[in-house]
């Protein structure tokens, strides 16, 4: 784990230096450089995150909680990652308006995904009352 962190940190510093050199003449290529570094770092990090998800799934099964409740939670997490990534890319390119729109769409879609959990909660509460 720490080897990956050190590697990503080093590559990040090198990328930042290259981006400074490049952004002077060609800002659009500097932005693409940053984007490719972000993709690389996230792919490495998410490859490691699979182990955590397995543990979470296992412990939820052991606790006797309905496994279907976990699916929307994971989905929303993934959507948040994708939204944040594209928002950051747009902000890097200086397009704050597009970034804000992507953020809004992401929020709405996450809310749509989360509605079944909210309704099941309401059903449980009304069953108790």
């Amino acid at each position, binding site marked *: 784990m720490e080897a990956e962190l050190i590697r990503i940190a080093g590559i990040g510093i090198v990328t930042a230096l290259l981006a400074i050199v490049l952004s002077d003449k060609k800002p659009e*290529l500097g932005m693409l450089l940053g984007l490719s570094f972000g993709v690389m770092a996230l792919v490495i990090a998410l490859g490691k995150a699979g182990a955590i998800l397995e543990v979470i799934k296992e412990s939820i099964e052991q606790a006797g909680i309905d496994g279907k409740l976990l699916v929307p939670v994971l989905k929303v997490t993934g959507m948040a990652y994708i939204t944040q990534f594209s928002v950051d890319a747009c902000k890097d390119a200086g397009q704050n308006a597009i970034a804000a729109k992507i953020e809004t769409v992401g929020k709405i879609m996450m809310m749509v995904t989360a509605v079944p959990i909210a309704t099941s909660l309401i059903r449980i509460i009304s069953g108790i009352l």
Partner: protein
Amino acid sequence: MNVDLIFKIAAIGILVSILNMVLKQSNRDEMAMMTTLAGVVVVLLMVVKEIVNLFDTVKALFGF
């Protein structure tokens, strides 16, 4: 992993800016613009492939 991608992009960027300078010096502005465009498109194709890879990873991981 694909560290070479970053160096590749940086090299293309430096090359394109040098070509751009040379072409502008010899008063071929439209050719300079075309080189810039070609460089951006080539790099964009490389980066888009990686972005698709990232999104597929997220999709597989979080069970979309």
